């Protein structure tokens, strides 16, 4: 355990990177995912198709493949970003597909009468969706979105394949230097638990507070 204590600074840096990598990616994923979900339920066929393609392509490709494709493949067509930026782009694109599915299931869970009432008042589709259905839908999907957040924190470890210095990479490098895998990886595991466990509790609290009582 001495190794972990001696390198506490490295672990804390790793945690900080993991945390803000996840926060930025999750924010972007929420925005993109909600937009894609809106496209998928819209009455406009091209948008529905584009939304479906976005979801199926991104959610059926392994995250590792997306990382290497974006970081090692895309520079060939002049799309090149620094490793950390690439990680945020890839993580938010991947997570957005899952957010879109979750939000869509939330939209489907809102009683039909809500949308019908909105239309009866003469609201247009964007108005019905934006001010009647979505606000209700989002409240019902707090728990699955929370799960996606935690999955994202864990997935950010895969940024190691493009050498982004977050928790998993910190542990990997420290192990290379010290050759003491057990304390090194145990330390990293605990660091992840420090992020994920409170997140789980917070999601539970948020869910109870926002729950729609019917």
């Amino acid at each position, binding site marked *: 355990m001495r190794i972990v204590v001696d390198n506490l600074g490295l672990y804390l840096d790793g945690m900080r990177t993991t945390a803000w990598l996840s926060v930025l990616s999750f924010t972007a994923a929420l925005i993109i995912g909600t937009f894609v979900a809106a496209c998928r*339920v*819209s*009455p*406009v*066929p*091209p948008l529905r198709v*584009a939304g479906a393609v976005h979801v*199926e392509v991104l*959610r*059926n*490709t*392994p995250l*590792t*493949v*997306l990382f*290497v*494709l974006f970081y*090692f*493949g*895309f520079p060939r*067509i*002049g799309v090149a970003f620094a490793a950390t930026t690439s990680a945020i782009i890839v993580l938010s694109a991947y997570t957005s597909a*899952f957010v879109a*599915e*979750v939000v869509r*299931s939330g*939209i*489907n869970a809102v009683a*039909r009468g809500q949308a019908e009432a909105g*239309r009866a008042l003469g609201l*247009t*589709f964007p108005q*019905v*969706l934006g001010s009647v*259905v979505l606000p209700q839908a989002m409240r019902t999907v707090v*728990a*699955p979105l*929370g*799960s*996606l957040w*935690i*999955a994202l924190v*864990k*997935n950010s*470890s*895969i940024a*190691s*394949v493009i050498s982004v210095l977050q928790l*998993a990479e910190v*542990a*990997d490098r420290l*192990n290379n230097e010290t050759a003491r*895998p*057990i304390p090194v*990886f145990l330390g990293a*595991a605990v660091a*992840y*638990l420090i992020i994920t*466990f409170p997140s*789980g509790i917070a999601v539970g609290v948020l869910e109870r507070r926002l729950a729609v009582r019917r």
Partner: protein
Amino acid sequence: MTAPVLADALGPRARRRVLAGSLFAGALLALALVVAYRRLDQRQQFNPVLWRPFIDVRVLRFLGQGLLATMKAATVAMVLATALGGALALGRLARNGPVRWIAGAYVEVFRAVPLLLLILFAYLALPKYGVDLSIFWFLVMGLVAYNAAVLGEIFRAGILSLDRGQTEAAYAIGLSYWQTMLGVIVPQAIRRMVPALVSQLVTLLKDTSLGYVISYEELLRRANITGVTYQNPLQAFAFVAAIYIAVNFTLSRVAVRLEVRQRSRYGATALSITGAGEDLALTDVKATAT
């Protein structure tokens, strides 16, 4: 494609608006495709030299073997994780306190830790303690350790979703605890969990690509080798991405099909999992009982 949820039969004005929207969105999407196409063309990425490897039998065989290695790891890990997951679920539902506690702690810890860490740990730490196995088994161990925790939760939800009457009836006719569990509860729970198991298989199949990190020669690793050899990383990774999508999309469809069939068979009591596909790990596994 299903009918729009938020709009019923459109009136004349809405139809005109949708048409205008369609034309605009269609034009925008077409423009994006044209820009992407021109970018690829300008950078010589349509050069046949870069694509020819994928009609070369040797390259295809090389990648095909990679796909087989991926499938092998996924299958073996799925079978072992299912067995261990079942044991964990029974453990969490056990009447014996310490057993319940240990199984619970295992599940809570292992599903909250990144899979990559578990795989690296197996690969880097175990050999130091005399565990002498091939890379394949280290990858499988990591996958099993993680997925058993996830599947354990799915199993538990499946068991809990059954009507209490099943257990009570079994006790009433004099069956013991284990006879009830194994003879009455588990067989029914398994049938309900089939769709969830298939979606978890998709996740697991995607996760085998982490074998790349510990240089297990699965599909992604082999694509990387192809990309380096022929100087075509973009094409190589896009090619394997297409393979993954084809396989996983098919499996997801099977899962949805099974779920629909189950719902019609058991009514609303079929086990449905929110956010299925991604990390059921910490997703609420809900039994939507009526």
